């Protein structure tokens, strides 16, 4: 399993039976391949009950997700306008959101919509970070150049303050706690020192540090 799918599969384990959740573009969108069938997916343009990617005759221009991908709605799906869709998000009806990040800070701040010299916009991320009951960041631990993405303080424009609950990466799982960042799971073959060397804040190592499941 490649790292991106490995991250998505682990992030999906935070969902509970019957949850309605929203998945961001990229790694998070793969979470839907690893969930209980009772989980309902929202697309923020205006539908709950997003099913599998549509093929052939099932392709229909009025079932497309927020990224423009055609899907097949599941039984019990509902459609509504985008204003309604964000009323659902802001009012805390969304059990969880999984999204990517450019930077995450020790206190749970997240930055994922602009970097120096390049602004691409936040889309629905600010509303989701504020409104979803659980915010799960699914990302690679460092940048492609190996620079840390988990920092003492974000340097890029913030998406939201102190909202992140869990950070799932290809090497570890880190929880954001009032005491600081806690390393709770680690990939087989890695040591807590390996992880610490790739993040800026000092990690608290969980007493019951677990090895991440490979299969």
């Amino acid at each position, binding site marked *: 399993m490649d790292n991106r799918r490995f991250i998505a599969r682990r992030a999906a384990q935070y969902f509970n039976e019957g949850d309605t959740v929203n998945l961001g573009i990229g790694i998070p969108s793969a979470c839907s391949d690893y969930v209980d069938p009772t989980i309902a997916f929202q697309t923020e343009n205006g539908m709950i009950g997003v099913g599998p990617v549509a093929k052939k005759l099932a392709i*229909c221009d*009025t079932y497309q997700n927020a990224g423009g991908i055609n899907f097949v709605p599941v039984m019990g799906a509902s459609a509504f306008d*985008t204003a309604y869709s964000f009323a659902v998000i*802001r009012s805390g009806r969304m059990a969880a959101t999984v999204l990517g990040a450019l930077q995450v800070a020790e206190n749970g701040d997240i930055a994922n919509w602009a970097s120096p010299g390049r602004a*691409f916009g*936040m889309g629905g991320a600010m*509303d989701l970070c504020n409104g979803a009951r659980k915010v799960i960041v699914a990302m690679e631990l460092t940048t492609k150049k190996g620079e840390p993405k988990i920092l003492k303080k974000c340097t890029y424009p913030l998406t939201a303050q102190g909202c992140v609950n869990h950070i799932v990466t290809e090497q570890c799982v880190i929880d954001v706690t009032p005491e600081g960042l806690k390393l709770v799971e680690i990939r087989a073959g890695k040591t807590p020192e390996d992880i610490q060397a790739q993040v800026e804040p000092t990690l608290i190592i969980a007493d019951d540090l677990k090895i991440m499941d490979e299969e």
Partner: protein
Amino acid sequence: MEIERGKVRTREEIMACFKDGQTIAIGGQAGAYMPWDLLDMLEESGVKHLTICSIDACNPGFAISRLIENGQVDKMITTHIGTNPVAQKLLAEGKLEVEFFPMGSFIEKMRDGGAGIGGFLTKTGIGTDMEKGKQIVTTSDGERYILEEAIHADVALTRCRRADPLGNLAYHGTGTASHPVMATCADISIVQCDLYCDLNEISPDDVKVPAMYVDMLYTDSREQNHIIGRIKRNQLEGM
């Protein structure tokens, strides 16, 4: 004659509504279910210095991006231009002004523009750059909110599944999206419908936008049967 055709208008009549400097609200997201024909007319009209309000900037080479590439757009009020490197480049070069809002705040600003509301309070964006230049309101329970003001456009270009001669509108699936909100927020609301229906063919319970919000309808019956195929081609060409 006027009564028989209801609110259906010709390309020429619709294009006569477009003027330089207008603020234009456009429905649709991620290049999906856009009002293609109306966007073609806006492009063909050649009007300039437009402010475009839309969820995103689509992909280079089609829809909203074509207006940007033609130099017809001075400013975008939007939530995301990540799929459009042309818009990002113009923004970086200072040739395109872009005002970003969180998607929930953006769509609510447009909704308020059509609902006679001056603005609303939201926690979204608290503690971020979204606070800059905006009023922060503390409510009686001590919670801090950003005051976001309504946006009202000159013209709205949207699409619906069904419309009747009066201009009652009904939608389907994610073809709803931002369309019913955008259709209410402008002085002139122009709607492209896939299916032009007889009066009462749309059940009153299915009407999402009542007719008084709608000024003009566009339908091309010759092409209706091929509309989905045509959209797919447009998308493929745009990608």
